[in-house]
């Protein structure tokens, strides 16, 4: 609450830029978004850019996604399938050089979208090249030997096989899900309108009631959908805040908990909601929505008058 109220001119300046919705970031949890507070600073003015679910709240779209993937992959032992291993080390070095450049020279438009500290990148690349070399040796002594394989080797191997057999899975990672940002406008001093609420429900293929329950429970307030199918919420909320809640909703109730595909169905079964994935077939129960304890706010005198 507090920090949202602080006026920071540098934030305002950026508001014309695109906002993207980063599904990966959403999935990686909130930590991701906090590393770029300035970028997520776009407030209040709903832009009409359609935003891809891959990058909510981040302008540095292209590069960011690229790195998300990288991170994802480097979390696993790196595979050989991307580039011919022989060329790899040189290429990596070039990239590192580029990074060096760009940390100093931000006028290079082509690369300026990168924003990561050099050490991190270098470390990452190092790990990768190492793995690369290991991988080369492996290829040969994998067969015809019954030595004890290391966990990393085995993991690498299984991922290689997976990628090989399911090219669609690899490309599927880049599949984007286009979603417009929530249009959030204040009404007077006490209410907030979430204008494209219904549209967002449609994009997410979820019942408005379900998203409504979640939003209101999370925001600890009340609200309803009006005649123009916009959601009117009691209290003052900024676009950024609504985005945060939406991101959590998507993480819990839209994307598959196993494969992260957004192609899922939410079913109710004996009091519990289940998320059924259309891509990988996984089915798991999701948290039920509860508002829980609500403190008494507002005029106590009025309350007392009512109950008395």
């Amino acid at each position, binding site marked *: *609450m*507090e920090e949202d*109220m602080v006026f920071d001119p540098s934030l305002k300046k950026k508001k014309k830029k695109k906002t993207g919705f980063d599904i990966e970031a959403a999935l990686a949890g909130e930590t991701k978004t906090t590393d770029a507070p300035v970028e997520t600073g776009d407030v209040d003015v709903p832009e009409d850019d359609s935003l891809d679910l891959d990058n909510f709240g981040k302008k540095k779209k292209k590069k960011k996604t690229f790195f998300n993937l990288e991170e994802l992959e480097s979390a696993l032992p790196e595979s050989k399938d991307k580039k011919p291993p022989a060329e790899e080390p040189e290429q990596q070095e070039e990239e590192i050089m580029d990074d060096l450049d760009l940390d100093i020279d931000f006028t290079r438009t082509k690369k300026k979208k990168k924003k990561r500290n050099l050490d991190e990148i270098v470390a990452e690349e190092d790990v990768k090249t190492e793995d690369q070399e290991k991988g080369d040796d492996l290829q040969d002594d994998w067969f015809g030997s019954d030595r004890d394989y290391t966990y990393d080797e085995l993991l690498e191997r299984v991922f290689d096989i997976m990628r090989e057999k399911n090219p669609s899975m690899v490309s599927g990672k880049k599949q984007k899900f286009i979603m417009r940002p929530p249009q959030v406008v204040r009404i007077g001093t006490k209410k907030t309108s979430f204008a494209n609420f219904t549209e967002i429900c449609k994009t997410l293929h979820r019942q408005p009631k379900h998203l409504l329950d979640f939003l209101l*429970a*999370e*925001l*600890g*307030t009340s609200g309803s959908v009006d005649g123009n199918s916009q959601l009117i919420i009691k*209290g*003052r*909320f900024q676009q950024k*805040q*609504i985005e*945060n*809640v939406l991101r959590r909703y998507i993480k819990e109730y839209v994307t598959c908990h196993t494969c992260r595909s957004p192609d899922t169905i939410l079913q109710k079964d*004996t*009091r*519990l909601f289940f998320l059924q994935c259309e891509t990988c077939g996984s089915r798991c129960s999701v948290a*039920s929505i*509860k508002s*829980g*304890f*609500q*403190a008494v*706010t*507002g005029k106590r005198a009025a309350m007392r008058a009512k109950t008395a």
Partner: protein
Amino acid sequence: MSIQNLNTYDPFADAIKSSEDDVQDGLVHVRIQQRNGRKTLTTIQGLSSEYDLKKIVRACKKEFACNGTVVEHPEYGEVLQLQGDQRENICQWLTKSGLVKPEQLKVHGF
């Protein structure tokens, strides 16, 4: 002799059982509520009744320099209320003092 694998397992057993007391999901819910203007309120629901919440609130008030109170709720038990957005503070404090495990905390809000 019974073969364990063939026992039927009802995945909804606890769902039905907990319909009465589904408050006790073992989680500590930290929520924020807006009051008038830009004032907010933090509520902490689900702290174990083993703890003396009065003592906790006294410590928190001092630590975060805010007012606070303990509210008795028929369904949710004793609930801690603190003035302002104390979500970060209280989460850190609860884990640091060892009263709540980090994985038990569920923070809500925007």
